[in-house]
């Protein structure tokens, strides 16, 4: 584990946290990757420098066979978190109870450090559009999502972690910016936040707002995970495709996120044009180096001095 950066930094932050936060905040895991079937064998045969892995929940909500057999071997060796795409937390359709049962069953197997999904909806009327769809940021929607998060947290017996999604449209009836909606959501439910740096970049570009306004609008003490990923620039808009390496502009925003949020478990997502594991490890090493630059104490200065704000 390359967590020396985190241990030092967490120690320096502990003086400004409440005892409750120290108790329930999930641990800093270091630098991880999304587990992809293309890399199973390399991970099992080798001992790659990955601190932790993010497991896509739905890929393992199957009866048995190779996916679960590989998963069992990998969770024995690496700390894992579960990341889903079908919770549909913001949907106005009733929850799929079978899906929640499936999450619980998988969690028993994986013993994840946390379970995350997205602040979005995926369909209504029994349909799943298999996309992370946007919502209007209204007080009505906030009340609705708050009640749903409470329900899921009760059902899973743990705090949920929710991710901001990339969006391509906004809605006239929104009554607050996305970051305010997210801040209120975490304040009212105690859910943790997965801050997807690329998604902030994509949405900020598509809607013409300042990514730093988003960054600074999120309470610093609720973010427990970062996502980094590549996107496709279509000229007038950007699509969150996860099929490229992380872009320079996103690395820059990541550095700013590290300054604001401190050491947060970081992982790189790749879902298409998946390169060999070695290439992903190089990219992950870049994240480590950037984080060390931002978080390591400079000569004569305490760790993170002046760089982290606890909201």
């Amino acid at each position, binding site marked *: 584990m390359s967590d020396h950066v985190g241990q030092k930094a967490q120690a320096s932050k502990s003086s400004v946290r409440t005892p409750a936060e120290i108790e329930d905040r999930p641990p800093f895991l270091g630098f991880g990757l999304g587990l992809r079937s293309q890399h199973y064998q390399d991970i099992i045969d080798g001992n790659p420098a990955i601190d932790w892995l993010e497991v896509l929940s739905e890929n393992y909500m199957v009866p048995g066979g190779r996916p679960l057999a590989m998963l069992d071997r990998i969770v024995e060796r690496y700390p894992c978190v579960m990341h889903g795409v079908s919770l549909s937390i913001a949907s106005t359709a009733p929850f799929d109870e079978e899906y929640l049962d499936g999450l619980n069953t998988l969690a028993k197997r994986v013993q994840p450090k946390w379970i995350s999904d997205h602040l979005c*909806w995926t369909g209504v009327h029994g349909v799943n559009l298999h996309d992370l769809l946007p919502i209007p940021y209204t007080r009505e929607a906030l009340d609705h999502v708050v009640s749903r998060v409470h329900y899921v947290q009760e059902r899973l017996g743990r705090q949920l972690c929710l991710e901001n999604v990339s969006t391509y449209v906004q809605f006239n009836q929104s009554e607050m910016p996305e970051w305010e909606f997210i801040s209120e959501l975490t304040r009212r439910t105690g859910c943790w936040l997965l801050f997807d740096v690329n998604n902030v970049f994509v949405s900020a570009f598509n809607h013409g707002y300042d990514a730093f306004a988003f960054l600074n609008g999120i309470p610093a003490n609720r973010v427990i995970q970062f996502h980094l990923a590549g996107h496709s620039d279509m000229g007038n808009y950007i699509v969150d495709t996860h099929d490229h390496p992380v872009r320079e502009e996103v690395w820059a925003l990541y550095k700013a996120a590290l300054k604001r949020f401190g050491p947060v478990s970081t992982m790189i997502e790749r879902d298409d044009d998946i390169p060999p594991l070695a290439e992903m490890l190089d990219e992950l090493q870049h994240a480590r180096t950037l984080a060390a630059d931002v978080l390591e104490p400079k000569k004569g200065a305490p760790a993170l001095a002046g760089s982290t704000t606890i909201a």
Partner: protein
Amino acid sequence: MLLPWPDPLRLPKRGIDMTLVAPFQEASLKLKDFQDRFQRAILKGDDEILGHIPDGPRETKQNLLGVYRDAYVLRLIEVLGTDHEQLRAYLGEKAFNDMARVYIASQPSQHPNARWFSRGVPNFLKASEPYSRHPIVGELASLEKALNDVFDGADAPVVHLSDLAAFAPQDWGKLTFVPHPTAMLLDTHTNVAAIWTALKEEREPPSATTRKEPTRLLVWRHEMMPMFREMSVEEAMMWEEAAKGSRFDNLCELIAFYDDAEGAPARAAGYLKGWLEAGLLSKVVSPA
């Protein structure tokens, strides 16, 4: 006092000006209605939701909504292509995509896991023109679905040939067998096995032929790998009977009726040995 309804035309075209939006909140679309319309926009091409979307700073709202519309179809075409790799190779990219679009339009996904979206493809192809006129297309999809299903089907113990040593030879007649839960028989009326194999090996597939009598394909999982092979009529008969819980001596009698009676026990023992070697049985049960 009457509250003014929000007029989308009066709202800013670029970005959101909260001071303009906030006074009209009472009349804003309820989340449920909003999601109904957004989903209709994606599934049916309905444009009503556009009245609630501002243009982006650089792109029209029509094109931005189009990102969701396109992504929906393209993502599901990709799912279908992954699950039906050989069908895609057989039909060719364009014909496969055309088929996929009709399938996607005809039955939206109803499962939280996209893994299950393609399950209806074989029946869709067998029931829909023009595919139904070409039985090979539906049978190729059926074989791929069976292989997908056994790939991540339920786990169960596997009995090995050496495990039979635990039973005294005089007790063999009483033994019953439990098939591995992934094992399934597929009845086919085309040369689908030969065509699938050629496609898998990236060879030119043979011409499709049809037969009146079914060819029985056994599909199962062995050491994490999906497998299939042809099963003779006699062996398939014994397999189906064994799966119902018939004792080994009854299985021998069954195939004695089918063919040479004298050689039946040896043939039955041969089939059993094959099943054990291929990991097809989960349990061998002795009544006492």
